[in-house]
């Protein structure tokens, strides 16, 4: 589906990509990982036809620069940093839907599932939204259209746990039809979403491996956390996860999205000394649709 052949890109005298070779097949969900300056964003921009480069990049045999509208018409993109657009939210949705030949209602519906109240913010400039609201809207635009490939740069970084859970569910619904490239600095942030890991280091691919993807992206875990003693710091840390507290018993109960389990445990690890009990059980299957 996508082929990078001997892909090189330099900025003045700095060679950022040093001859990448990579093939991405339909159904591949790739975690593109690497430290800052590894070349992830440059590679994505070459794929989107935004950069000139040496070597070749093809999507279904087409050059993304020469066949922009055909290629980009089938790619949904979520950038890491939302653009500072002054357009109103409603205008942005209509604009993107018109260009992509999609129904703006689909984009609004996806953003709504992620917890964005479009009626409230429709007239506000996009740039005035919070980081999380911007991310939800951009995800809504990317997922609210027909695509063969989703390219997402740290897509869940600004989402609250509830929205993350919905987001994972939305990706799970598309996993059979859509290939994905999810860029991140950290593998643990995206490991549960992917079935293949490509690691870049200073412009070269240093790891290309398939990973176990038995994890159901739409799964949910019932969790109970018990502390040895009350802790205001812990109460603050667990608040975004929307757990219910039983203060008398120092116990918190709530639900965590399956793909978010590592992240949740990472948060708990900061309070390991206080932790008296932890129970995580897979709950009844839920879908976000």
């Amino acid at each position, binding site marked *: 589906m996508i082929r990078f052949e001997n892909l090189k890109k330099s900025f003045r005298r700095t060679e950022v990509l040093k001859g990448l070779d990579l093939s991405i097949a339909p159904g591949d969900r790739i975690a593109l990982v690497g430290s800052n300056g590894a070349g992830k964003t440059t590679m994505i921009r070459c794929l989107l036809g*935004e950069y000139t480069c040496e070597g070749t990049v093809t999507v279904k045999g087409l050059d993304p620069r020469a066949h*922009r509208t055909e290629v980009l018409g089938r790619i949904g993109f979520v*950038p890491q940093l*939302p*653009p500072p657009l*002054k*357009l109103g939210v409603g*205008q942005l949705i209509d604009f*993107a839907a018109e260009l992509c030949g999609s129904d703006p209602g689909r984009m609004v519906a996806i953003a709504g599932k992620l917890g964005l109240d479009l009626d409230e913010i429709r007239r506000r400039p996009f740039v005035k939204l919070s980081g999380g609201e911007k991310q939800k809207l*951009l995800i809504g635009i990317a997922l609210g259209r027909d695509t063969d490939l989703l390219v997402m740069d740290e897509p869940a970084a600004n989402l609250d746990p509830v929205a993350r859970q919905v987001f994972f569910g939305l990706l799970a619904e598309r996993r059979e039809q859509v290939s994905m490239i999810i860029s991140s600095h950290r593998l643990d942030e995206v490991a549960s979403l992917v079935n293949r890991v490509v690691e870049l280091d200073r412009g070269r691919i240093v790891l290309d491996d398939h990973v176990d993807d038995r994890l159901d992206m739409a799964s949910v875990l019932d969790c109970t956390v018990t502390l040895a003693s009350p802790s205001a710091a812990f109460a603050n840390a667990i608040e975004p996860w929307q757990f219910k507290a039983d203060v008398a018993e120092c116990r918190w109960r709530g639900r965590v999205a399956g793909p978010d389990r590592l992240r949740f445990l990472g948060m708990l690890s900061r309070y390991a000394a206080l932790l008296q009990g932890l129970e995580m059980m897979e709950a009844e299957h839920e879908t976000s649709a």
Partner: protein
Amino acid sequence: MKQLIQLAKADIGESLRARWFLVYAIVFGGVMVGLFVSGLTESRIMGFTGLSRLLVTYLQITMAILPIFMLITTVRSVVGDREAGVFEYILALPVGIGAWYWGKLAGRFLVVFLPVFGAMVAAVIYGLIQGVAIPWFQVLFYTGLLASLAWCFLGIGMLISTLSRSTDVAQGAAFMTWLFLLLFLDLILLGAMIQEGLPAESAVAIALLNPLQAFRTASMLLFDPQLVLLGPSAYVILDNFGYRGYLAWAMSYPILIGLGSAGLGFWVFKRGDYS
């Protein structure tokens, strides 16, 4: 064409919410209000009076403000958008580069020309209310001249934007361009060049190639058909072009410069990195 209109609409939406547009609209509205308040329609200077006096003054002020405003806001917005990641997102949508570039140009032209045009319309309405004669030919021609000047500097601004990699460089280049054209106005550098022995024809040729001067001379020509204000160089202009010929030149030449600059900018942009 559908994409181009979409992108022009998006750029208009962006610009109307930008602070620079607010300042810009206030400046042009303020200039016109200032001229109304100062009662220029009542004054009689060098034999011309009524609304034409107000329009001439407005044009002279516009010539000082419009080009630099146009250059700075255009280069700031285009290079600034590139630096801020707007292009990374917008150009990842299925849009043709030509539609994006020319759509942006069209949208920006409409946004920038609207306050200038609005001020002209306000002047006409003011004249009608005051009961003074409306010089329709002057009004229409001045409006055309303003559109031509705006387009010219918009095209130059887009070219500078595509050649510059940072906002600072783009702003510096825009300012230098404006300064360069300003220096070649007849009253400044050309006067000094003639004093140093430059043939009058060469000096006039340089002046004719300067879109600012073309605009300025044409605006004079409408109320001073013999170009008495311009002195001896008027003979070179009127002998070579004639009255109508020069008006046609002053209207079309800046449009061609704007189109050529924007076209060159597009060619450069299309061949390079977009974001």
